[in-house]
């Protein structure tokens, strides 16, 4: 009996040891991801002079929100630029998201429910795009946009982001529709719904978590995208935030606190979106992992 108790104790310490190792690892990981964000925030509160000091001020001696006020002040030129970029980003990302959902929902539903010629081929063709690095498509897409007369328009970005975001959106949503029993629609159709009503009233509400996850994914993808925005847009008034913020580097000497403030503000919508909708996101990515 004593032998078995001993074995149990040894076994326990084994698990505890791994648990502590796991915690340590998570703390390191957390530090790795949070530190840059934290430093970005701290720097954004400094004056231009304080930001360049060495050794650095770990906490600004004179914390100031002046950098932020400058960015959102519509009367200053910096504020005007920043707000325009911000608005451009919101516009492009939102429109991309809406279009992605509008296209992905019926496409995913069709892939999930209907058997049509070329279904498998099309489905994998949709994924083919994701097998190549984005830069490969840069020049061809630029030429295409020029032919279409879309260079220097937000349309070029929205179209491009859709080609990138849609494949995953469709895959994600198809998984959702696969998991919704077809009998639900059949029941609805017998209960007096048309095919569209059965989809709209019964199936689509059930896929809300999937639609939300898809939206977040599309939005963040479009919001953060840099290289295409940098290539397709040359006019200042068209620029989105990632490209626009870069201008803080290039013009005159780098205004570090201003740059950090702008970067911080750029990350706010993404963080807020994620925090509010994260439970849907997790549910969407794990949906179908186990049978309910």
């Amino acid at each position: 009996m004593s032998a078995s108790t001993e074995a149990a104790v040894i076994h326990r310490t084994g698990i505890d040891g791994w648990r502590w190792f796991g915690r340590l690892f998570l703390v390191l990981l957390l530090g790795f991801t949070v530190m840059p964000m934290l430093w970005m925030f701290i720097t954004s509160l400094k004056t231009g002079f304080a930001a360049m000091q060495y050794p650095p001020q770990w906490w600004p001696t004179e914390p100031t929100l002046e950098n932020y006020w400058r960015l959102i002040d519509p009367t200053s030129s910096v504020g005007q630029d920043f707000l325009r970029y911000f608005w451009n980003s919101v516009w492009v990302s939102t429109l991309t998201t809406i279009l992605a959902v509008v296209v992905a929902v019926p496409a995913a539903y069709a892939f999930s429910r209907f058997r049509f010629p070329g279904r498998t081929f099309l489905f994998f063709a949709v994924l083919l795009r994701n097998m190549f690095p984005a830069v490969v498509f840069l020049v061809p897409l630029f030429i295409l946009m020029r032919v279409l007369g879309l260079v220097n328009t937000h349309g070029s970005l929205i179209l491009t982001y859709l080609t990138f975001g849609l494949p995953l959106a469709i895959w994600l949503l198809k998984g959702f529709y696969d998991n919704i029993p077809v009998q639900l629609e059949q029941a609805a159709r017998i209960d007096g719904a048309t095919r569209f009503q059965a989809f709209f009233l019964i199936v689509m509400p059930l896929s809300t978590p999937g639609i939300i996850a898809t939206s977040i994914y599309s939005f963040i993808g479009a919001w953060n995208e840099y290289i295409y925005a940098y290539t397709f847009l040359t006019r200042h008034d068209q620029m989105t935030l990632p490209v626009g913020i870069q201008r803080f580097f290039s013009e005159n000497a780098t205004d570090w606190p201003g740059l950090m403030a702008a970067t911080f503000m750029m990350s706010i919508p993404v963080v807020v979106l994620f925090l509010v909708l994260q439970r849907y996101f997790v549910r969407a990515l794990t949906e179908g992992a186990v049978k309910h």
Partner: protein
Amino acid sequence: MAQVVLKDVVKNYGGVYAVNHVSLTVEDGEFVALVGPSGCGKTTTLNLVAGLIPMSGGTITIGDRDVTDLDPKDRDIAMVFQNYALYPQKSVYRNLAFPLQMRKMDKAEIDRRVQAAAKTLDITHLLERKPRELSGGQQQRVALGRALVREPRAFLMDEPLSNLDAKLRVQMRSEIKRFHQDLGATIIYVTHDQLEAVTMSDKMAVMNGGFLQQYDSPANVFANPVNMFVASFVGSPAMSLVPLTAVSKGTDVVLASPEGWEMPLSDANGRKALSAKSNKVVLGGRHSTIQVHKAQVPGSVPGKVYTVEPTGDVTFAQVFVSGAVVNVSVAPSFQLRPDEPVFLEFDQNRMHLFDAETEMALTL
């Protein structure tokens, strides 16, 4: 409620016939069970009646209307699914109300009907719950309720009891039967369980390989199966089938076994046996019509006990006869041991004879 008529209904996928020229009439208020092994086309037939899949040929009428080309919503039918298909995001109340809302009924009338249906099925206390908060039996009732509220022309049920545990299944079986009697509803009920079909239905349609094999009352299907498939599918334990050869001996006819023994047939059975296309005949007998003897009696055939299964009030045994397995039953006091030689006496008035070539029952 209304009559449902299937005429020459066909469903094929490419060259494969899932439903092969099925014709049957379900009278107004009748409970018809579509029964058969999995893949026999019974569920496909039900889906065709519901309009959920397009037909390849034939017509279906419900009441006086040809519904062949109508959408499910216009057929005025209700369906209960194997997995219940309750709308997970809606409360029980809204599940029941949905078919009425779709028909643009006014709110007061919807409420009246939902409450009435809930009362009938004893689910009033569950109306505010979501389907996932209900037990299997309760979900089943809600599914029935959703079918009931609309007062449709016919009810279609697709294995509604197969997801329940054994005890609840027996209980719901009698409830559905009661439901049918009280409403005088026309019900088409799909099941793979022949016992469910026999106990619940007014008529049963036995299907196999997309073909309708036999359509009759359970008693008639049980007593006069038209072919070997129906004979072996309906009844538990199944009817035993022994392939033999019919031989004329003067005025008498006997069934001869390759093992060497012969079994004399009555006059009527002799004429049946001779009507077979060749002399190959299959002898069929249900356990209740076969007597087991320890010693040879006139007309009995030799066999060897294979297994013995006491169930308490009756003991079932399997006996090898001429290479085939024959199910028999004896009183628990009748001791049988495996490998024991026994003699089986088939009741001449209740035995079945089939043509081994066509597999059809031999009749006069």
